[in-house]
């Protein structure tokens, strides 16, 4: 990974993550009337270097190990927290992006900021620089994990299989006249191609053209099937139905020509754009149809960039 990219990703994460995602929520607080002498135990027990001061749910200050040390030096151990704490405190809201916290740390040089909920201004957490680093690392790890999983899912499958010829076959059955289920085959194919690690553009073109073909099966026929063959060079998708067939294939391919019945048009289909769309998004399209027998549509999308994937 080059440095520029790393920086950008981390910057991106500081915008993506909320303070709420990384802050410490299990927080210790002290009351302002507590004597400073008791502070040591609180800090020591939790191994922290500062603690928010809260009276009746309201954040009134913050007291740190530095305040404790100063009191020791000046032999003021009987003083109360409220006399020694920092009162004019800077806070953050839990719903702010992490980058706000980063900027505040840079600006004030403090070791920690109390975090309030925006709604009722109550103390909900505390954030330190190490919380930020831990939060980003954790997120980076999960991003990396997803990426790794995607890469190794199957994009190398063709390289790993030893055979003279390899192709994968995925078959989907499409119900006729049922628009509630229309799109399930193409959505399924899309997800499958994504898992195979194909490039987003190829996946989109394959999914869109399959969707249009699927809609045709639903709108005009009593059902059919979609079979996708994938080899290292191309995706071939065959869409077959059992009729009624297209009387004039030439005409059917003209943009704007449609024989869709009213109920199909009401749903926003039947604009005579289906087949032209398929043509637009694929590298090759072959349409054969016999009236009363059925239609056979074959489309090909080339995977010219497949080999360059890794």
């Amino acid at each position: 990974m080059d440095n520029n990219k790393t920086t950008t990703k981390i910057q991106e994460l500081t915008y993506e993550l909320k303070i709420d995602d990384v802050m410490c929520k299990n927080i210790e607080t002290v009351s302002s009337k507590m004597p400073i002498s008791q502070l040591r135990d609180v800090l020591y027990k939790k191994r922290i270097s500062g603690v928010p001061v809260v009276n009746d749910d309201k954040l009134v200050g913050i007291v740190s190990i530095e305040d404790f040390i100063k009191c020791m030096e000046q032999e003021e151990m009987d003083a109360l927290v409220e006399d020694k704490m920092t009162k004019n405190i800077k806070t953050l809201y839990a719903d702010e992006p992490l980058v706000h916290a980063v900027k505040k740390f840079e600006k004030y040089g403090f070791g920690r900021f109390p975090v309030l909920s925006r709604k009722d201004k109550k103390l909900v957490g505390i954030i330190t620089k190490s919380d930020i680093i831990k939060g980003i690392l954790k997120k980076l790890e999960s991003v990396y994990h997803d990426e790794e999983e995607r890469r190794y899912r199957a994009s190398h499958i063709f390289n790993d299989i030893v055979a003279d010829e390899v192709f994968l076959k995925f078959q989907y059955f499409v119900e006729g006249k049922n628009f509630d289920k229309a799109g399930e085959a193409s959505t399924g194919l899309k997800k499958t191609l994504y898992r195979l690690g194909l490039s987003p553009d190829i996946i989109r073109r394959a999914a869109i053209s399959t969707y249009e073909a699927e809609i045709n099966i639903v709108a005009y026929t009593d059902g059919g099937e979609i079979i996708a063959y994938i080899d290292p060079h191309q995706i071939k998708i065959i869409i077959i139905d059992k009729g009624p067939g297209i009387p004039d294939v030439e005409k059917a391919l003209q943009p704007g020509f449609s024989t869709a019945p009213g109920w199909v048009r009401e749903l926003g289909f039947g604009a005579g754009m289906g087949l032209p769309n398929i043509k637009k998004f694929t590298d090759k399209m072959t349409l054969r149809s016999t009236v009363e027998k059925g239609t056979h549509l074959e489309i090909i999308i080339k995977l010219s960039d497949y080999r360059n994937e890794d």
Partner: protein
Amino acid sequence: MNLKDIVKMLDLKVVSGDIDREVSAGYSSDLLSDVIANAQKDNIWITLQIHVNIVAVANLQELAGIILVNGRQPEQITLKKAEQENIPILLTELPTFEIVGKLYEMGIHGNSIN
């Protein structure tokens, strides 16, 4: 522009999906094949169609969200699918012309301008 801001400024009702995402441009059409042919990734789509296939189209084109106009309510199955596929569906009482005008004023243009 983030969809969150659009939702806030146009007072849209969010009924599905995560609205924290960027919107690249807008497209308006009630013909699904037209949207498939001409909308682009991360577009906001304005339509009056409410049946489940709008989710499939948005999913295919990886649209940023769908605004349903004229106070139209999505069908139950549309909502279910949109929630499944994490497609934001947003409702407005305004007609298409008004909502597109407002989006344009906010700086959301068509794909050809950007």
